[in-house]
């Protein structure tokens, strides 16, 4: 295992120290491993809390700040945080306008956030509403599974819900906006290499020099199928086609197009992929309203990428364009 770390057991805590040192505008509750917006709680504003296993940076801690999240809970690598963390985060951002929990659809995340909501209800009067993202079309027949995984859409949802909250909209509106984004978003990912959980010490799976995994998640899970390496053009088709046909996205639809890096793939390849994705969308008469290219929801050092499309209306685009000031997404301010 080749990593810039000291001890697998303390990776998350040490990274949080680095985030705190690099971003004076944020607060970090080290005991609960929560990254908090510096001026939280913002009274009268709905508080946005997300979180999940670590190893997906910048998600979620890199999205804390004005216009996006109020707090992010960092679990162990690829392991959902515990209810105590979400409870602490919920209390820290409670501005008397309720708190929204943004949860990626993984059994562990869902159950821990559930318990946190139960505890919050019991311990504090704060209203908590939860939205779950489940945009990964790689998960088939989701009726007979834990459901689809929450992946790329989470980034877009946190941005848009964050903007809605910043505008002072009430909890239910913000939650509705969030659900709308998830309902209109789909993603699909692939990997050229596996990744190594620091505490495990070896790659989660092995891939041959001439193989790739299609339909992977963001936890180094093996994907739906293993296929021979293919040119970027074909990889783009393998990712975009299932997304487009699933929602479906049709001629004239406007979308936010997001090409995400898995952590080990350099930007030059992501831009090359974006070119292929844009061509395919163009061929389908789908209009790109906004785009995002880069490593925003990663899987440690895994090489690969994912594509996320979110069908948007003008008001969603407006919320996307609204000012945001976080370590990883920043514009308009």
């Amino acid at each position: 295992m080749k990593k810039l770390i000291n001890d697998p057991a303390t990776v998350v805590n040490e990274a949080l120290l680095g985030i705190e040192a690099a971003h004076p505008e944020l607060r970090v509750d080290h005991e609960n491993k929560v990254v908090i917006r510096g001026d939280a709680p913002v009274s009268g504003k709905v508080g946005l809390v997300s979180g999940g296993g670590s190893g997906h940076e910048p998600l979620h801690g890199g999205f804390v700040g004005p216009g996006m999240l109020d707090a992010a809970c960092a679990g162990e690598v690829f392991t959902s945080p515990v209810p105590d963390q979400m409870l602490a985060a919920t209390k820290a951002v409670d501005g008397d306008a309720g708190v929204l929990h943004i949860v990626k659809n993984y059994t562990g995340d869902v159950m821990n956030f559930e318990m946190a909501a139960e505890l919050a209800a019991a311990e504090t009067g704060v209203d908590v509403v939860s939205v779950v993202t489940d945009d990964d079309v790689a998960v088939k027949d989701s009726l007979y599974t834990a459901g689809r995984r929450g992946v790329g859409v989470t980034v877009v949802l946190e941005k848009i819900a964050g903007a809605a909250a910043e505008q002072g909209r009430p909890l239910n509106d913000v939650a509705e906006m969030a659900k709308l984004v998830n309902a209109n978003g789909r993603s699909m990912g692939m990997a050229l290499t596996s990744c190594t959980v620091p505490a495990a010490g070896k790659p989660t799976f092995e891939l041959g020099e001439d193989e790739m995994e299609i339909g992977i998640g963001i936890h180094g899970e093996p994907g739906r199928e293993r296929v021979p390496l293919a040119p970027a053009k074909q990889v783009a088709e393998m990712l975009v086609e299932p997304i487009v046909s699933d929602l479906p996205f049709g001629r004239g639809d406007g979308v936010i197009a997001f090409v995400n890096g898995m952590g080990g793939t350099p930007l030059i390849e992501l831009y090359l992929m974006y070119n292929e994705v844009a061509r395919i969308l163009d061929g389908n008469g789908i209009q790109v309203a906004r785009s995002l290219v880069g490593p925003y929801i990663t899987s440690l050092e895994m090489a690969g990428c994912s594509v996320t499309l979110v069908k948007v209306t003008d008001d969603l685009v407006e919320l996307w364009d609204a000012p945001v000031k976080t370590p990883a997404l920043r514009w308009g301010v």
Partner: protein
Amino acid sequence: MTDAVTLAGLRAWVQGFAALVAEQKEKLTALDAAIGDADHGINMDRGMTAVLAALDSDDTLTSAAALFKKVGMTLVSSVGGASGPLYGTFFLRLGMACGDVDSLGPEDLAKALRAGLDGVVARGKAEAGDKTMYDALAPAIDALDDALDSGNGLREGMAAAVTAAESGRDATTPMLARKGRASYLGERSVGHQDPGATSSALLIRAAATALG
């Protein structure tokens, strides 16, 4: 002869489970690498290590209810993932069912274990055959009930429970996962033993050793 289970025995069960988890940590993580995200052994070991520390540092644990509440809360607060809430809820419900006692008979123990299992189901909605810890726990508790109903003692009952848990665990290998991360793999989950069922079989084995 009395089959009554003492508080000391219950503690020994928890400590024995922690020891088995520590010993099988790599194995559990490797199983999770195949159909999950390679952390089950790491998660359970982190949790049970925290539990041991909690038991040592707390001398108010003078009843089964208090003991298992502590175990459950500690797991919930330290494990995370799917197994944290599931094992945590198991012990929390187990403790509530045992009540404020410092010893209990086999039937009460069996009832309490069933309550714990119900907690797992309430939290995770697993059904038989979903390829989860349920597939090891449920047969084990059924076997214990049957043994006690047919007049056997706790030792025999626990022995039957271990056999049932381990064949339940082995039976998860051919199953197609319908819960948890493994379910994302679809057909590719077939042919791999479920990590949670494997740790649950250790839980039953530890119980047999300490209480049987």
